[in-house]
């Protein structure tokens, strides 16, 4: 440790920063190079946010079973509705078919666990003749009072604030089994996906690209068809939010869990499976 005077600068030879003249030349060239590169980067146009690409789903594929308000399957069967579109094998496997029971009038008796199963099979025009618009009543806060006849038939919960419970936001006033977008484009029920798209644009974009919604079948288009689901196959249009699911069993545990454990003590060498 050499002692240093109080006023003495740390670097006592600041006269020549680059003692070697070659160093100065190299540094100048490098600086010029970086400036040119920076200018070039600034000139290159920004990458577009979205890549335009052909949709995976053709317009022809936008065909769901025409017709309907989504009611629970049990409700539909009780009311003697058309069950021709009820497809047990959407979930059940054909190799082990469910045992289907019928009552005296040859109506399917649904097991208890399917009581809240939703299918879409009822025509508005069964009850509502065309050009006979229903007058809606509103409560004090401006929400639609769901008509008595629809209680128990329709779960109304579209949107967090229930602001979209106004029937005529989607249904045509004069002909209830026709739909119309906010812009006034009239759509049939089988084009319901386009109606959803008129508000849920980003979700529709993702769905068209295959990033939203269920997919099954073949990823390889040459090997076989890919099956996509329409909006209304998974979401009830009147109450689109998913209801809770019962979780299936978790991992096999060799030892019972300590009950009161806030954060499981888990390190890289400690795992259950």
């Amino acid at each position, binding site marked *: 440790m050499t002692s240093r005077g109080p006023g003495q600068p740390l670097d006592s030879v600041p006269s020549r920063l680059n003692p070697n003249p070659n160093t100065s030349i190299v540094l100048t060239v490098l600086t010029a190079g970086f400036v040119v590169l920076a200018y070039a980067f600034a000139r290159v146009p920004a990458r577009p946010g979205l890549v335009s690409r052909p949709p995976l789903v053709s317009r022809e594929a936008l065909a769901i079973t025409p017709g309907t308000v989504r009611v629970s399957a049990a409700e539909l069967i009780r009311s003697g509705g058309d069950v021709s579109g009820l497809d047990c094998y959407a979930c059940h496997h054909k190799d082990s078919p469910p045992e289907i029971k019928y009552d005296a009038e040859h109506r399917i008796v649904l097991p208890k666990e399917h009581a809240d199963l939703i299918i879409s099979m009822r025509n508005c025009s069964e009850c509502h003749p065309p050009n006979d618009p229903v007058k809606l009543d509103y409560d004090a806060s401006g929400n639609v009072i769901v008509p008595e006849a629809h209680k128990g038939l329709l779960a109304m919960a579209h949107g967090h604030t229930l602001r979209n419970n106004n029937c005529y936001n989607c249904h045509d006033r004069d002909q209830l089994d026709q739909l119309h977008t906010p812009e006034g484009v009239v759509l049939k029920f089988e084009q319901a996906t386009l109606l959803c798209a008129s508000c849920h644009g980003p979700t529709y974009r993702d769905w068209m690209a*295959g990033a*939203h919604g269920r*997919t*099954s079948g073949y990823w*390889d288009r040459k090997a076989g068809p890919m099956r996509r689901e329409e909006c209304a196959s998974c979401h009830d249009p009147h109450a689109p939010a998913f209801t809770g699911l*019962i*979780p299936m069993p978790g991992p096999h545990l060799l030892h019972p869990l300590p009950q009161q454990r806030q954060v499981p003590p888990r390190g890289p060498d400690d795992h259950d499976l």
Partner: protein
Amino acid sequence: MTSDATGSGMTRRSFLRASTVLSAGVAAIAAGLAPLRKIGQFSSVDEFLQKYYKELTPEEMKAVLARIEDEVQRQYGIRPHVRDYRPMNGVEFVYALNLTRCVGCRMCVHACVAENNQSRNPEIQYIRVLKMPNDGTFDVDKGDHNYAPKSVPQAGSFYMPVQCHQCKNPPCVKVCPVKATWQEADGITVIDYNWCIGCRYCEAACPYYARRFNFTDPSIPPDQLNLNMSYLGNRPRRKGVMEKCHFCIQRTRAGRYPSCVEVCPTGSRKFGNILDPDSEVSYILTNKRVLVLKAELGTLPRFFYYFDI
């Protein structure tokens, strides 16, 4: 020598000594070979002498597949269809999982068990679903595997399923002392169950806890056996070998989606060929916010988490 040569050539003493030593030696050898009596897990000499997967000629592979079909038939009473699916040209598989949509219902876990002939007791699961606190962390140590509420999703948490990430730089492959696990051309890391010695180095090396070990003989009810089998995929394993997710090789190499993709009720799981610019996964990786789990480890997974928002 000279003393032995006298008389009859063998005294009573030398006979007793020699016979004692001889019987002790035979007993020692028999005791040494005793573990071989338990070698029953090699059901045939052919299996014991089987060559490494990559060295099998097409004819030999055909014989091996027929032998495996015989073995499964003998054990389960049903004849499966075992095939050796090879990688497809111009295909690299990538998986994307939407963390915004996953509700943690574990349907994928059990569809996987059924598809891939995992042991049912004890049940081996390739997918583990972590219930994570919704506080902006991706610290898997804060995850809970064993949640069992009446209904999912629960407020205040999100769900992160973890399975084999099919890394491009797989630590499990590097540590295998016998090269029983390797990465195929389409990105799937596979295991030759006949070559695995069960050292579990790969299980220790995997940062995603994706590998499972058969501590006991797997038990599968014969009526639940998936008969569409592949050599590197879902053919029944045996005690003492590793196994893990292989992107349902018997489905995906035939052009189909993996079982977990098909069963997901919320459509959170996406799968496809990243080399195809029109595939779903290409769209997701181009346009969505994507997360790689434990990216700092440099394993370069082919499994991506993404968000809708």
